[in-house]
């Protein structure tokens, strides 16, 4: 597997969360603002109403006391003091009554807030700041019995501000809680809604790599059904193509091997019957036949163990120890004819795989080892279970070995290392590699002899099967 940079991909869940979450958040925020400002308005309105009443009261006072002009100012001051007392909270009231000739009563400071004269008997309101304090100011023009006057009443906004703070806490806190709760529910809902997809993902991930059986589509959400059906159609295609590949190879094997067997048999018979002169020719022919037979076998094995053809193959538990014991019967005669001492060290080992592929792998390793052994050389075949649970299959010879620089190339198809024994097809290790790949096993080449030795380095081929991956039931 190539190392891929971890890229954050847009997820369906994120998309759902964003498309539902943001608008919801905006709506809730807007409603919180609306609640706050409308409550604030109500607080302002009630203050305005109170100020207007005071202004009207002062104006009507002017009408009543019109005959007593000199006492007008003290009268109004008393009225205001009474008003101040009756008001709640610590807000201060200020007032000014402007007549034609100037100040009638009150604080002349307020004069700066007289705007252009409005309509008579209609109060106007405004917020004004003075000395770091906010004042609510009402201006009330009035035609009194003493002439046209403008009544200005101002009040600090302490009560109103306090009320605003209460409103802020009372409306915005529950609104924010609502935002959090709603977004939380959306999050949980999206998670819950995505669960069928999550389950499907789990089912697909838990399958053995060689399992091409269709996925069950019962109990699936309607949206997932087309996806699962497409996956199943794809699997069926793969299965069909693997099966047709297998069928083709099976026929090809028959078409190639039957005439080969006939020719080989005929040549062996002819060798027995021939005189000494033809005998040498027939021996050469027989030798060539064996080579053709062998490379045919290897090519068929390569094709049959390729990833496409093996899709239809099912893995079983294979007893490596027994496989090694059986290989002794198959290879002893060839070893004796090559004057090679073929030996074993077979421990009980079980691996998950295909028996014929492993037999092919082992056969190619043993054949190579015997072919490259010097006369009287030893070839040793081992299998064992490692401490970490992995299984190890090793074939070791006392031949010339493979120099480190060549080691990666010898697995290539048809590659012949310089100085390799004659008559090889260059396919043996390719078959080994292919079979190992199908079993998630790794193949390593090393010198068999200790580096200080004076003999040839020899070769040790190690095939390491990892601890059974997906050893679950994948069709037996």
């Amino acid at each position, binding site marked *: 597997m190539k190392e891929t940079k971890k890229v954050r991909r847009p997820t369906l869940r994120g998309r759902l969360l964003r498309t539902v979450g943001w608008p919801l958040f905006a709506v809730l925020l807007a409603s919180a603002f609306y609640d706050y400002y409308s409550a604030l308005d109500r607080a302002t309105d009630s203050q305005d109403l109170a100020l207007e009443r005071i202004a009207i009261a002062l104006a009507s006072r002017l009408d009543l006391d019109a005959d007593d002009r000199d006492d007008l100012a003290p009268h109004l001051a008393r009225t205001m003091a009474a008003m101040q007392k009756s008001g709640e909270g610590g807000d201060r009231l200020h007032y000014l009554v402007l007549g034609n000739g100037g100040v009638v009563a009150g604080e002349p400071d307020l004069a700066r807030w007289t705007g252009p004269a409005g309509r008579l008997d209609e109060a106007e309101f405004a917020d004004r700041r003075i000395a770091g304090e906010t004042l609510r100011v009402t201006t009330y023009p009035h035609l009194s019995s003493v002439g046209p006057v403008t009544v200005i009443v101002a009040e600090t906004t302490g009560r109103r501000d306090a009320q605003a703070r209460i409103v802020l806490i009372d409306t915005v806190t529950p609104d924010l809680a609502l935002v959090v709760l709603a977004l939380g529910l959306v999050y949980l809902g999206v998670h819950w809604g995505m669960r069928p997809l999550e389950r499907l993902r789990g089912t697909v991930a838990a399958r053995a790599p060689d399992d091409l059986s269709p996925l069950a589509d019962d109990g699936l959400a309607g949206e997932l059904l087309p996806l699962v059906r497409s996956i199943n159609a794809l699997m069926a295609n793969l299965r069909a193509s693997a099966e047709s590949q297998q069928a083709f190879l099976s026929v090809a094997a028959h078409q190639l091997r039957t005439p080969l067997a006939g020719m080989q048999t005929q040549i062996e018979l002819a060798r027995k019957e021939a005189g000494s002169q033809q005998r040498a020719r027939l021996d050469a022919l027989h030798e060539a036949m064996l080579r053709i037979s062998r490379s045919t076998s290897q090519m068929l094995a390569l094709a049959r163990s390729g990833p496409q053809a093996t899709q239809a193959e099912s893995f079983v538990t294979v007893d490596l120890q027994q496989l090694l014991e059986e290989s002794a*019967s198959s290879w002893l005669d060839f070893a004796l004819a090559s004057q090679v001492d073929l*030996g074993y060290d077979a421990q009980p080992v079980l691996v998950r795989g295909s028996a014929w592929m492993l037999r092919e792998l082992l056969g190619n390793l043993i054949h190579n080892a015997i072919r490259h052994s010097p006369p009287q050389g030893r070839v040793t075949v081992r299998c064992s279970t490692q401490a970490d649970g992995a299984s190890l299959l090793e074939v070791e010879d006392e031949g010339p070995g493979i120099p480190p620089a060549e080691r990666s190339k010898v697995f290539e198809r048809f590659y012949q290392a310089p100085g390799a024994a004659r008559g090889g097809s260059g396919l043996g290790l390719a078959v080994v590699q292919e079979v190992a790949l199908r079993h998630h096993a790794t193949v390593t080449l090393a010198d068999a002899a200790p580096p200080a030795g004076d003999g040839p380095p020899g070769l040790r081929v190690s095939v390491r099967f990892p601890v059974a991956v997906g050893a679950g039931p994948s069709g037996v």
Partner: protein
Amino acid sequence: MRILLVEDDPLLSAGLRDALGQAGYEMDHLAAAEPAPDALAHGMHDLAIVDLGLPGMDGLTLVRRLRAAGNKLPILVLTARDGLSDRVSGLNDGADDYMIKPFLLPELLARVQALIRRSQSVASSKLAVGPLMLDLSTHEAWLAGEPLPLTGREWDLLQALALAAPKVVAKRRLADSLSRWDKEVTDNAVEIYVSRLRAKLGDGGLVIRTVRGIGYRIDV
């Protein structure tokens, strides 16, 4: 000894008929599977060699049909499909052995001999390997016609090797065959019995060959 060969390829069947004929077997040949049950019905044959890839009825069906009819004739299957799982090799369907094409004639002859030897040992309880003759019912042995005195354990070992020949028998299997004498038979014990057996066989034309680290094989 009479062998029925069921093989449709003319070149191969001609070669096999000649080769087995030269080895002393009487040969009958069929190019298709359909007439085979009738040909075998008379019980005149000692072995059938059946190709799996036949036109019409295939070899596997023939093997199954013969076994279903109760025929116990030893059957050697020839197949072009290597790598075939054992399911396709016919072993589970009643074949006694199989060979993948192409094969070497000496190996084919050795397998044929072993199959006939084994089936005859069941019928006559006599087992012959080269100069060695074992009587499976009386547990007597002869080497080149001379009685060969053997202990019980030695006899069991020799029988296991002779029945399996020309295959290699793993030491642990030999230990199993001695389990009626001792509960736990070590590999060492097997080695000791084999060396005693070798001493008794001397150089009478029969060799027990050691395959390093794994077991033994009888060579003639």
